[in-house]
């Protein structure tokens, strides 16, 4: 293998991939990049994986001789960073990767390329394009609600439904549900459901910036592949069927509370200072002419805040929530006001945006704290 490339053409890709490389892993091969030089296409294909997600960068370079090698990610990154801004030559021979520029020279011992986890060939011909901004919004509106209990792996991912007529992402940890629906026809011909681990999606959310308009997606039985810019991201899927959470969504929550979002957030922020760490409980008392949030903490005292600007139509209600969960939902509400649909004290509350005119919609459910 032999190729050359300008430092500035290579380094950004290496830095991007470095985010994937696991540190202190018990499987040392994962601390390597797989570098493949493709003579025919005159390009480099560099892969990093942590077994859960795999990211592949394709980079134009001057390839003199094809081949592949696994090389320490940390070392390569350190060397590249310190190299002067010049053309860098790479030659692989006898287990060593020779890295040279006009002024510097390194010999790097390498691992065998076929010890690296297999990277399947990807044909993106059948992939479907999505608006990148919308895609990010879908992820950030739902990923906070996934479960962290590994005993219930199905709930540790986001369920993504692609239907010819619409698409939807949903997540739940049994205490809350977040659901985002885009009411526009998609390019799929039949309905597909897959459960995607949050790690891959959160990574996408972070790296897809305003610079890209579209993300291409290819769904395979074992994995989902996203392509953006010069990168491919593959994530394994969580095997199994996502349970039907709709039966947990109340139909008769007729008490409607509408309140200014920022105002509410501030009030919760203050009252919650005295919430205890076992339940993070804050307590809401709502009637047609009064809305009070309070929190009594035997060890530290009490906090109480009266919300003046709100409308409420329904029975008087006392209800308690884990304020962290409540804030997590309010944080992804996009409109200036937030709507609560409430039932009884020990029943789920529903939260919505108010008067949002978009081609998508969201709904959130939050289970209260049962008052024993």
């Amino acid at each position: 293998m032999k190729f050359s490339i300008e430092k500035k053409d290579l380094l950004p890709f290496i830095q991007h991939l470095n985010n994937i490389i696991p540190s202190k892993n018990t499987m040392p091969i994962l601390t390597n990049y797989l570098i493949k030089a493709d003579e025919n296409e005159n390009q480099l294909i560099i892969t990093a994986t942590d077994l859960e997600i795999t990211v592949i960068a394709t980079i134009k370079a001057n390839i003199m001789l094809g081949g592949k090698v696994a090389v320490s990610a940390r070392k390569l990154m350190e060397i590249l960073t310190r190299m002067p801004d010049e053309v860098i030559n790479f030659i692989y021979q006898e287990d060593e990767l020779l890295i040279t520029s006009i002024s510097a020279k390194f010999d790097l011992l390498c691992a065998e390329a076929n010890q690296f986890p297999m990277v399947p060939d990807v044909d993106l011909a059948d992939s479907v394009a999505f608006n990148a901004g919308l895609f990010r919004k879908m992820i950030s509106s739902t990923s906070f609600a996934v479960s962290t209990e590994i005993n219930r792996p199905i709930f540790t991912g986001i369920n993504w439904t692609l239907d010819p007529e619409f698409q939807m992402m949903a997540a739940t940890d049994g205490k809350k549900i977040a659901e985002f629906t885009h009411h526009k026809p998609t390019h799929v011909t039949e309905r597909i459901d897959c459960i995607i681990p949050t790690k891959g999606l959160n990574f996408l959310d972070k790296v897809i910036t305003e610079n890209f308009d579209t993300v291409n997606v290819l769904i395979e039985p074992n994995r989902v592949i996203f392509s953006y810019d010069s990168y491919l991201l593959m994530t394994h899927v969580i095997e199994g069927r996502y349970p039907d959470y709709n039966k947990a969504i109340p139909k008769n929550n007729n008490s409607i509370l509408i309140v200014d979002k920022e105002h509410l957030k501030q009030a919760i922020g203050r009252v919650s200072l005295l919430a205890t760490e076992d339940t993070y409980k804050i307590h809401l008392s709502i009637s047609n002419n009064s809305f009070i949030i309070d929190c009594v903490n035997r060890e530290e005292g009490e906090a109480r805040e009266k919300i003046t600007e709100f409308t409420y139509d329904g029975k008087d209600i006392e209800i308690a929530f884990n304020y962290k969960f409540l804030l997590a939902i309010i944080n992804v509400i996009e409109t200036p006001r937030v709507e609560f649909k409430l039932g009884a004290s020990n029943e789920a509350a529903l939260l919505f945006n108010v008067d949002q005119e978009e081609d998508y919609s969201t709904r959130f459910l939050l289970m209260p704290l049962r008052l024993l």
Partner: protein
Amino acid sequence: MNLFNKIRGQHRALEMLHSVIDNNKIGGSYLFYGPEGVGKYTTALYFAMAINCLEEDKPCGTCYSCKKFLSFSHPDFIYLFPTPNMKFQLDGSIKEEKFLKEYESFLASRRQTPWNTYTFSQKTELRVDAVRMLIHRISFSPNEAKYRICLLEAVDLMNRTTANAFLKTLEEPPPNTIMLLTSSRPDFLLPTILSRCRKVPFLPLSVIDIQNELLEEHGVEAMQARVFARLASGNMEKALQLLESGNTESRADANELKELIVAHDDLGFMDFLGKLRQKPPSWLYEVIIHLQISLADIAFFEHNQEYLVNIDRTHLIEMMYHKYPNIDENIWEEIRFLEDCQKKLKGNVNSQLILIEIYNRFCELFC
């Protein structure tokens, strides 16, 4: 070469596994059970390789799949073994440098030979963190293997919570995921775990099997191979341990002590006592083991010479036998006396006193 041929003395187990591979009826979970040091782990590893091997003669040990198994870098091979509490992360990382090093040294020693006993710095068991990592890993679709393999060594070293966490996975493993468990104490397993597995029985190795393994794989001299194969009582791991300690000072020192006893050389014994100060506490313990073996040798000397262990020291055995021909009748009393000494040692009784007690008693016996 088919790697299964390297396994010695486990015909029943191999027959079973061969038929599984040949008939391609692979699914489910397996428990490899039987005494320590007879090849359960190695067989399980080879079985895992055979299931995924790309060649005809499975497991070949040379295709890229087999190679990844042998180097523990296969992405669909999850290997759990008893460890100290290393705080395993879900993604398979270990944050504390010291533990990561130990983990890597363990694997390195495993790659060298499966019979090595690697000693961790702290008490080991199969930890709940490791099982959580396994559960997390297998919730994803496999990367490249036909069958994903989870190999759990010494599953009996799991506490109840961990066992319960694991049980659910064992009951409903994801598709194409094979669980291989090994245990030398199957009676300690939860009945629910036992009932979920196909059982693969392992037997103690014969003296000949161990002798041949020592000769052929470890380059041990013929005479020594014979000695340690006998001492090992069917446990290959122990044979190698004995080989290691047997070649070290403690065996030579035990022989020196025996000669002092036969000669009733009190002055020499005083010098010998002086040695004690520079030795680790385990030294006297090992010397006592060798004394026990020597007692057996003396008792066997007249009628069962083929059982002799210290064949390289027959002249000393003979000399001692002649000093105490009736040892046959009292041997268990003496063995028990030595066992008692070991117990005292562990109970931190002054080791000098113990050594003196042994010397005095044996001088009387062999005078």
